[in-house]
């Protein structure tokens, strides 16, 4: 070997592991109200600093501050809070259903409710969403019946997807909710294509898509950003940085080297970095991006800085790779708690009302679940007709599938 310094391979590691005390000292936060709000027609180059800041509206005392304050009326905020409570109650019930053996699998969005629900509020009802598996809040905010979601999770006779999909992989065109894949990131460039189609047709609808921090490492993330930029597609590209991709911390996806929002800069996309646990900040950023897209100014990349408070799924145990009290120590708090504190701070809500709203959400979930369970749960009760197994592979069933259906004896 020549007389040179030896190279060494770096493998990133998170600051803490099980048994350690949580340590978020590396998290750099902007103050609430501190980040400037550019005009919607600002040049991406002129606003590139926003990719390294953090748009926050709510401060620790629940005050809404700064240029990004969307100034929503209290009634809207109360409705949003109820939708977040309903989403959490729904998640809790379905998680329990999985533990009770009533379904095979479930994924909660605990701690990330604001990401989906604020977006649903900021977009138009007929805008098209291409979600990942943790945006059930979109469906709930758009009024998709809870019992339908449960029928899907239970793969029962009324499952709108006829027992074909893993639980939580919902689909509802009527609610502008694209069929969830499970293959990571595939929906990101598809959303760009949908948005290009909307522009091609001279429509006024826009699209939005969501991926996690881990999925930004997929090639489809690059294709989405590139195509969105090249064709100025009216689409909002959201990265939900919840710090964890199953057991891999965001540093494994490259999150330590630069912010995920900053990925947008190289594509010439405006890039916003938002406190994902701040309903008002998520709403404001989404509204900014939606207005920009609708003005034919193209796509925006938004990083939602949040924390996956629970496991990746029911098949995951996060205490095996991170401190068990990590979520409680997350410096940006809980999105439901923060919106509640805000509403109380402005005199539009009380602890009693919060408790009543929570009880109401739990009751609503209970009633829906009773109805769904009465139809059936996975392996118990009425299943979708087995005949339907061979349908929808193609529009019209070809001969070879007809024969196979006969062979199966149905």
């Amino acid at each position, binding site marked *: 070997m020549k007389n040179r310094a030896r190279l060494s391979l770096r493998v990133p590691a998170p600051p803490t592991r099980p048994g350690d005390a949580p340590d978020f000292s590396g998290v750099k936060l902007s103050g609430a109200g501190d980040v400037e709000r550019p005009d919607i027609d600002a040049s991406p180059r002129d606003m590139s600093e926003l990719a390294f800041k953090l748009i926050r509206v709510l401060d620790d005392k629940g005050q809404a501050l700064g240029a990004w304050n969307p100034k929503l009326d209290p009634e809207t905020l109360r409705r949003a809070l109820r939708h977040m409570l309903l989403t959490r109650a729904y998640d809790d019930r379905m998680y329990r259903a999985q533990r009770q053996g009533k379904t095979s699998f479930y994924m909660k969005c605990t701690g990330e409710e604001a990401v989906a629900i604020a977006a649903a509020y900021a977009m138009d009802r007929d805008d098209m969403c291409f979600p990942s598996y943790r945006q059930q809040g979109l469906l709930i905010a758009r009024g998709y019946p809870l019992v339908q979601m449960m029928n899907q999770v239970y793969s029962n006779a009324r499952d709108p997807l006829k027992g*074909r999909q893993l639980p939580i992989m919902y689909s509802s065109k009527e609610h502008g909710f694209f069929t969830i894949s499970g293959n990571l990131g595939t929906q990101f460039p598809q959303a760009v294509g949908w948005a290009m189609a909307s522009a*091609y047709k001279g429509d006024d609808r826009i699209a939005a898509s969501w991926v996690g921090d881990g999925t930004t490492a997929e090639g489809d993330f690059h294709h*989405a950003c590139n*195509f969105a930029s*090249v064709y100025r597609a009216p689409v909002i590209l959201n990265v939900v940085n919840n710090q964890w991709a199953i057991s891999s911390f965001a540093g494994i996806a490259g999150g330590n080297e630069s912010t995920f929002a900053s990925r947008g800069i190289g594509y010439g996309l405006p890039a916003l970095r938002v406190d994902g646990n701040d309903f008002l900040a998520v709403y404001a950023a989404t509204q900014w991006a939606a207005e920009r897209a609708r003005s034919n100014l193209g796509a925006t990349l938004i990083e939602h800085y949040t924390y996956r408070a629970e496991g990746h799924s029911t098949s995951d145990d996060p205490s095996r790779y991170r401190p068990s009290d990590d979520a409680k120590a997350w410096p940006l708090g809980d999105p439901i708690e923060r919106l509640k504190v805000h509403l109380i701070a402005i005199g539009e809500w009380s602890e009693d009302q919060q408790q009543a709203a929570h009880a109401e959400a739990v009751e609503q979930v209970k009633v829906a679940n009773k109805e769904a369970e009465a139809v059936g749960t996975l392996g118990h009760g009425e299943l979708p007709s087995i005949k339907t197994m061979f349908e929808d592979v*193609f529009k019209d069933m*070809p001969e070879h599938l007809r024969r196979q259906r006969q062979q199966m004896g149905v």
Partner: protein
Amino acid sequence: MPTMNMIQALNSALDVMLTKDPNVLTFGEDVGYFGGVFRVTDGLQKKHGLTRCFDTPIGEAGIVATAIGMGAYGLRPVVEIQFADYIYPAYDQIVSEAARLRYRSAGDFTAPLVIRTPYGGGIFGGQTHSQSPEALFTHVAGLKTVIPSTPYDAKGLLISAIEDDDPVLFLEPKRIYNGPFDGYHDRPVSPWNKFAASDVPEGHYTVPLGKAAVVREGSDVTVLAYGTMVHVALASVADSGLDGEVIDLRTLVPLDIETIVTSVKKTGRCVIVHEATHTSGFGAELSATVQENCFHNLEAPIERVTGWDTPYPHAFEWQYFPGPGRVIEALKRAMEG
């Protein structure tokens, strides 16, 4: 009736559909202003406008993914992958997405898109411009795979594919874009205008998907082929002195089993030819299908003539390509069995 080679016929199909249906658009690498490296989209941007025929970044997964999104919106995109050899980056989008949208959403979302791509060897393209990857796609539930062998069929099948509500992979045998290459590489190839199949109507017509064509009737032996190999099979039968029945499958999925079975029950013998590698090639599926349906009618073992199980070798093109010499030997073996 105008005479067209396969490129002109495909161009005409796109032109007809761009004119007929405002939801049809076409895009891909070098497809727009330049008109495609094989000229299939020549003049379409000028005639139909920038947003109906345009260039894309070099990103096959992005091309197919955006087409899926457009299909979900309600458009009928036709995308070009410049060479089938470059389709693999888009494999996930084709296999996991386009092919499954209808099923996984219970019909809520569909992706009526066509992926056109030139495939096959015989052009000294080496391993990256010669592959025949059809079996990687025929294995996928929810995807139709179509391969024309003449200008007339190319136009009619492409129009059918564009009008079809399911995703269609449309593989174009590039060796026969300009004339029906019969596998005798040391002989000149006659251009398409010397053949009746180059009489292509200018307007709209269709050739149905899922229907094979008996391109030569015969009683001795059935030959199953598609793409360039249809012409190799026809020449081989002629030179073998046998009365072979040649079937051009035209669509691999869904497969026209009835036409195949009817023929093999008549001849009792079957030779399958394709350019793709042997192991797990589409010939294996054809052989199994024939055996399942015609076992008691078979007089001899089913023969497969295919590319060898190696990457496509540049310098040994004609040793690799399953030309008439090998096909004739197989025909003779099938007659002896």
